[in-house]
């Protein structure tokens, strides 16, 4: 009896001991950071991070690391992986700089870059193909469309985030591919959540709902896998970090799910501008909202936060799962049935909560007038890119890059990956700098010509396109003096596609991947002049994607052509055949042809008819 009692107990103890031992090498950590942005927007940044020791990863002993992804990485010999799914546009003028030091963001659509281990370039390409195919199955996205035409090998833009030994670095190949046309929707969120240890059932991931995530003004999902080796020489770990960032419109997400139609504000709730001359009982000039909107986690995300994920670390700063970034005076009420640990960090701007598992948690922010706003960090570069020109044959691209800082110059790498059917003329590439009077980018039209005519292009890497095999790769290292605007222009030629190469919605246009801009910290620019060691904390920025209209044929035209040519051919063949097989004779030579014979024939016919009629009559009798 005692044995029976002891056995489960000992098992429990052993398993607990194992768990605690494992947690020292492989741990899991998640955090939600909420930051209200101006214009009733709310930035919600979800971060999930788990580690696996490299030895357990090699032995396929997965604990928190997702097995499905781990096996793909092993199969494709991928040492570091970055995958992005993005939607919408970040409004830098109103929302300030991007979250996570802008490193967890992708261009519109899907972006993937990875360091693949291989001895030769061909082997790396083959493994890259394996990787994209496998990931397409895992993430329900058309990643298998990242073929050689959409793959480039950036030189300066990306650097491995993880620690790779110098020996292994020699065999690592960086490959980068984008799918700007790919839509990001619920089917991509489902596998994303499945990779998490708590699968979206508990913890902050229980807030992630496709209905809200894909209603956001801007959202990006990221998966990053990298090896991290501690400096003290202990065993390396493989770290997977999954992030979801979204900017929700509080007003829109508070609408009930079953009735999302926007309705006019009731008259009694309108705040009118009384100074207008036409202000009266029936006319109103509505004023902007001055108070902070009321919201709660439950209302904004449409579902409750179901406690913390029980697998998170229990103490330390990592255990604080939910953080909110608001000014001191903002009132925040917490609703939970359990005890709550609350901590304030960084001069009170950041409040963090440690929540307990299994109990619902909610944050309620009532409507409030605030005297001070949260300081927004300003982005150090504004980037706009558009297509210029008209017509079906040629076009141009103009990128306007503004340095808003009045004091410090900006050094950055500008990477373009163009599809093969868009062929730029490199000799038309012009980079002109004009010092803008105002740092705002919308006033670039009235700049004064800058006195310094130094070439802003410091370094340039280029690989021309080959039809149907690879796209153009253009990478520029640029330097922009303070308070100035750089206009980068080049012309391109649109190629004609073959009839079968057009997609079903060819008239919509073709998406061109966003340009990737990597901002180099100014300290590194002074220390290194060669492109190989541009180390330093790099921030990333992406322009919007472009829609390139290509000349499209009338797709019913081939059928018209087929019908017309067959008619012409039939006519021609018929008449030629007729001429060839017919024997031509003179009219008098023809036997029994002419008026006499015609008369005879009619007579004979009449005789025959008469005979038949008579015959019938005889039968009747």
């Amino acid at each position, binding site marked *: 009896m005692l044995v029976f009692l002891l056995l489960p107990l000992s098992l429990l103890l052993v398993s607990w001991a194992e768990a605690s031992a494992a947690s020292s090498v492989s741990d899991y950590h998640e955090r939600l950071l909420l930051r209200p942005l101006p214009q009733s927007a709310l930035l919600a940044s979800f971060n999930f991070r788990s580690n696996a020791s490299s030895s357990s990863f090699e032995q396929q002993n997965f604990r928190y690391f997702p097995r499905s992804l781990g096996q793909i990485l092993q199969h494709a010999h991928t040492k570091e992986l970055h995958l992005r799914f993005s939607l919408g546009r970040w409004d830098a003028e109103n929302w300030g700089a991007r979250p996570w030091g802008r490193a967890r963001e992708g261009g519109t659509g899907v972006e993937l870059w990875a360091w693949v281990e291989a001895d030769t370039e061909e082997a790396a390409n083959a493994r890259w193909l394996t990787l994209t195919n496998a990931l397409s199955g895992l993430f329900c996205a058309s990643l298998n469309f990242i073929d050689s035409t959409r793959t480039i090998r950036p030189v300066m833009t990306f650097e491995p985030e993880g620690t790779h030994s110098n020996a292994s670095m020699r065999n690592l190949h960086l490959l980068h591919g984008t799918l700007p046309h790919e839509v990001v929707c619920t089917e991509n969120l489902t596998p994303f959540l499945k990779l998490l240890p708590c699968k979206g059932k508990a913890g902050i991931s229980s807030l992630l709902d*496709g209905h809200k995530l894909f209603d956001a003004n801007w959202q990006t999902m990221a998966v990053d896998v990298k090896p991290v080796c501690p400096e003290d020489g202990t065993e390396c770990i493989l770290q997977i970090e999954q992030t979801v960032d979204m900017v929700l419109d509080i007003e829109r997400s508070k609408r009930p799910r079953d009735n999302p139609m926007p309705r006019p504000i009731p008259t009694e709730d309108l705040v009118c501008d009384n100074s207008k001359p036409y202000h009266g009982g029936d006319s109103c000039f509505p004023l902007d909202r001055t108070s902070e909107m009321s919201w709660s986690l439950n209302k904004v995300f449409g579902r409750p936060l179901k406690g913390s994920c029980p697998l998170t670390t229990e103490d330390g700063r990592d255990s604080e799962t939910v953080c909110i970034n608001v000014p001191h005076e903002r009132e925040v009420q917490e609703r939970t049935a359990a005890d709550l640990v609350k901590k304030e960090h960084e001069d009170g701007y950041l409040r963090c909560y440690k929540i307990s598992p299994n109990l619902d948690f909610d944050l309620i922010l009532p409507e409030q007038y605030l005297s001070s706003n949260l300081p927004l960090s300003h982005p150090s570069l504004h980037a706009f890119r558009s297509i210029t020109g008209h017509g079906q044959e040629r076009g141009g691209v103009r990128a306007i890059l503004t340095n808003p800082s009045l004091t410090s110059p900006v050094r950055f790498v500008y990477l373009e990956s163009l599809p093969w059917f868009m062929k730029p003329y490199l000799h038309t590439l012009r980079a002109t700098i004009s010092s803008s009077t105002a740092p705002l980018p919308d006033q670039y039209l009235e700049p004064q010509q800058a006195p310094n005519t130094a070439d802003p292009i410091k370094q340039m890497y280029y690989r021309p396109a080959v039809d149907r095999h690879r796209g153009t790769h253009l990478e520029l290292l640029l330097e922009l003096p303070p308070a100035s605007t750089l206009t980068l222009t080049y012309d391109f030629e649109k190629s004609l596609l073959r009839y079968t190469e057009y997609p079903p919605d060819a008239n919509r246009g073709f998406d061109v991947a966003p340009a990737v801009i990597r901002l180099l910290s100014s300290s590194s620019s002074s220390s290194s002049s060669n492109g190989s060691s541009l180390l330093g904390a790099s921030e990333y920025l992406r322009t919007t994607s472009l829609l390139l209209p290509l000349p499209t044929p009338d797709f019913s035209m081939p059928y018209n052509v087929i019908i017309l040519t067959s008619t012409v051919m039939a006519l021609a063949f018929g008449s030629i055949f007729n001429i060839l097989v017919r024997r031509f004779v003179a009219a008098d030579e023809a036997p029994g042809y002419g008026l006499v014979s015609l008369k005879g024939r009619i007579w004979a016919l009449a005789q025959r008819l008469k005979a038949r009629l008579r015959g019938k009559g005889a039968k009747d009798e």
Partner: protein
Amino acid sequence: MRLLTLLPVVLLAAFSMPTLAEHTSNWAVLVSTSRFWFNYRHLANVLSLYRTVKRLGIPDSQIILMLPDDMACNPRNTFPGSVFNDKNRLLDLYDDDSKGGQGMGGIEVDYRGYEVTVENFIRLLTDRWSEDYPRSKRLMTDERSNILIYMTGHGGNEFLKFQDSEEISAFDLADAFEQMWEKKRYHELLFMIDTCQANTMYTKMYSSAIIATGSSEIDQSSYSHHADQDVGVAVIDRYTYYNLEFLETEVTSASSKKTLGDLFDSYDEVKIHSKAGVRYDLFEGGELEVRKRLVMDFFGNVQNVELDAANTGVVANEIRWRQELEELGKMIEFAKKAGNHTDASPIQPGPDYAEAAVRSAESAETIKLNGAAEVKQDNTWGKRLVGAGALLGCLGVWAAGSWFEGK
């Protein structure tokens, strides 16, 4: 005496059971072939079927879902992340969270956007893929798999359009099914199609064990059921709507004993506005057998364990069993010997346990993907001088040539 008369019946039943070879897995291929927002209803049709088969137990890994366009996250959709098949909007087909959070556990689309092509569909059916192709996008069926193939879109007499740019003909489909039959890729196949003149699509089939049903006869259109004013377009087709009505109300659990006969009888021409058709003749036993098949044989997930003792006799089976056991023993011995060589450490997967295939032969044709070359922007005067020099040289040669010629 009574026992004796019963005996033959019992025996007959016992012997006829194994000949009714049962299926051991269920797969579903659900295809919408229309792009663009106004074809919302075709996606809703397919998603309704997806939800039904998932409800009746077919797991996501055995459902191949083909959606050519994105309706849920379409900018025109007033309800982001949702697709509805009824104007009451009680059921969100895309991500059903009615049951407290994750009702259906999300959605997994296997083929989407430009991937939905005739070529990919035929490749899927016949399983002709490159080595790297992911398993989740393949139809990994065998001779004991029952497959439900549901297609919807715009079609005509003996063709179905894919994304408004290409079409699959009834002949292509029939040949693909024949290839499947020859490759033993299905046990029984239920083909459903909801499109205009749908019944013409199955007229050319000639392979065994296929049950086919369509929404409308030749020269008949298939109509949509109703529109949702807030979505702004029609949300479901009639034939699918009444199929679903039957499945939702009659087949409520996996233990349902409703037969395909019941399902086919529920088709009402007055309600559907077109004459739904059924083809029985390809199936062994014809109409009688088809009508006896359970709805759950195709729409649900049934995992039957088959003991083939009855076919071979107990003794033969035991011999085979012993042989297998011996073989297994040999394998264990072999593994033990191999283990001795690499001492008794825990199983270490070798470096080549999952070696990605490296194709080298094609390298002659492939254009090298190597990195971009640096463009040097040195002083161009030197280059210009060289160019001018070359031009002058050419001029000199030409002048010399003409001078010699003149001589």
